């Protein structure tokens, strides 16, 4: 270093380190630090370059587009069309087959979702990983916690803060095409047996560790949420035995069931109701031996590009008069007593949508640990790759 340079340098190395430490200790503001070091100008210039990589900018208004990540056949397309008509914001719908897939996308970064639909057991993990923000309830005037059924909605709160608000609850049962399958199916034990006999080559399981492994565990008499290695090993054995007899491993089973390519599938309430509505020969049954009861929530990713639109759509969906249309089309049961009052009798009396309390008793809510347990994740991947 020449003497000239030393004297004219904007800041010396020692001084820079010094200022950096002060910044870290919090004794200077970032603005001061950047002013002293002259780095602010450089970064400002760099970052304003119309970049190779897109930068997320703050959107003051609602913008013209937003994106939602949700499940197959889960919304009434008319809902989004009405929202677009009201606000001018077009809604892109992305469909996923499992919570794991949603989590993987969010972890890899840059999803572009402004709203998504995680299931109850995943929310604490999203909070822990810092992938979702606490909801600003002041922007959700249509949401009323007092009309919500706490049995289904408590997992949206973590440490007393609301991170997610409920969309609907539901169950995971079995859809059976009774014109093709004559054997009685009333439990997960039956499901796997019939899959290897009468429904050979015509049965679908979810591409989703929670339900596929969970229901296999239930059929063997274990807990839906087990992560015990010996129980998982037994479940794996069963799944590998069933695999050659399966039609497909896919969470979007409606098209195959409607085309009668598949005759029996693991099935969520809403799909069961939709299938049964259009094809009465397809029955929806809950496992006597157990299975899943769940609630899906709406949450806003921390990385959302258009949060104002995310809040706007969420608030729109929370309005009972909008939610009721969603519930009629989608066929999943509501958690909101205001919506329940508005629903027509034929929906509330539908046993697929609102089953007896007795048939719900064996069911379990998914446990947070299953989402991150490496044993279950690897079992599912092995099962598919086998």
């Amino acid at each position, binding site marked *: 270093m020449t003497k000239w340079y030393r004297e004219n340098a904007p800041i010396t190395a020692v001084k820079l380190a010094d200022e950096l430490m002060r910044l870290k200790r919090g004794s200077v503001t970032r603005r001061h630090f950047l002013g002293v070091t002259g780095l*602010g100008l450089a970064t400002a210039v760099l970052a304003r370059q119309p970049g*190779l*990589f897109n930068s997320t900018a703050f959107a003051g208004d609602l913008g013209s*587009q937003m*994106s939602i990540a949700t499940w197959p056949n889960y919304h009434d397309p008319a809902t989004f069309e009405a929202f677009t008509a009201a606000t001018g914001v077009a809604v892109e*719908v992305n469909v996923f087959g499992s919570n794991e897939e949603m989590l993987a996308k969010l972890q890899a*970064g840059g*999803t572009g979702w402004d709203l998504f639909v995680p299931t109850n057991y995943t929310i604490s993990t999203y909070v822990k990983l810092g992938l979702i923000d606490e909801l600003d309830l002041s922007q959700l005037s249509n949401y009323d916690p007092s009309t919500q059924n706490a049995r289904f909605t408590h997992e949206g709160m973590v440490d007393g803060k609301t991170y997610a608000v409920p969309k609907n609850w539901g169950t995971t049962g079995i859809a059976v095409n009774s014109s093709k399958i004559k054997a009685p199916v009333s439990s997960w034990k039956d499901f796997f047996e019939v899959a290897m006999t009468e429904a050979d080559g015509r049965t679908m399981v979810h591409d989703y560790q929670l339900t596929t492994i969970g229901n296999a565990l239930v059929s063997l008499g274990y807990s839906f949420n087990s992560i015990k290695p010996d129980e998982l090993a037994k479940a794996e054995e069963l799944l590998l035995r069933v695999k050659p007899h399966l039609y497909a491993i896919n969470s979007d089973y409606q098209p195959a069931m409607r085309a009668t390519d598949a005759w029996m599938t693991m099935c969520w309430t809403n799909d069961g109701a939709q299938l049964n509505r259009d094809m009465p020969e397809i029955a929806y049954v809950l496992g006597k031996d157990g299975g899943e009861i769940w609630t899906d929530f709406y949450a806003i990713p921390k990385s959302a590009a258009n949060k104002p639109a995310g809040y706007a759509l969420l608030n729109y969906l929370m309005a009972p008069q909008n939610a009721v249309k969603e519930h009629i089309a989608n066929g999943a049961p509501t958690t909101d007593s205001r919506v329940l009052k508005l629903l027509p009798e034929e929906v509330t009396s539908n046993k697929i949508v609102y089953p007896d309390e007795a048939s719900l008793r064996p069911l379990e809510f998914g446990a947070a640990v299953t989402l991150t347990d490496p044993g279950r994740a690897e079992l599912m991947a092995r099962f598919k790759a086998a």
Partner: protein
Amino acid sequence: MRALISSVYLFLYAPIALVVLFSFNAGRSASEFTGFSTAWYGKALGNSFLVSALQNSLMIAFTSAVLAAVFGTMAALGMERLGPRTRALFDALLAAAIVVPGVVIGIATLVALVALFSFVNPALAILWPGERPPQLGLGYGSIIAAHGLFSMALVTMIVKARIAGLGRDIVEASSDLYATPLTTFRLIVLPQILPSILAGFLLAFTFSFDDFIIAFFVAGSKTTLPIYVFASIRRGVTPEINAIATMVLAASLALILSARLLMREKKSKSGE
């Protein structure tokens, strides 16, 4: 023999015919024909997400193909003057860029960029003077870069093969006549290698336009046409997809035909 060939063409075109047929379906489904209608063409063009996915795909394919054509040609020209070792290394890297499966390219690029961003973004956050520091993320840039990698290697290979087939004597004759290297390039070399550059460009464009797996990993929040189609297969394909596919097919057929006609005209003119 005839029968075999006809069945091969039937095999190739039956699915395409089906795609086109269902684009004129009146019903909502892309698998049950309920009547003739052109409504889905209007709907496809009115669907801002589908249209922007198409625009993204065209933009990405064009940019990556142009970059690949320019840089690939430059590399092909420069490579023959490299030392043997550097050249062998270069050749190996180009071959690798071509043979490494797309799925690996996608994953490796994702892994590397996510790792890179995890250093760069916090640094930006500290150094940024304003309230909201910009965040580097996956997007157009990463797709173009990953597509360009394969395309550039492809163009280099094609143009290099063409240069190798070029007569050296004509180039030497030109420089003997005191033409500057640039003039020699412009008047002698370029016209000779132009067809292979164009071929490379077209291949690069087609590759990028049709690629799903690389973009699937590195697109971040951006949607290309194949990504949109893949997502639609999951959410239930409507004839919108068939309509847009039919339009793309028609447009490319028109392009090929007009290029053919243009070339024929040129030929017959120069023949006169």
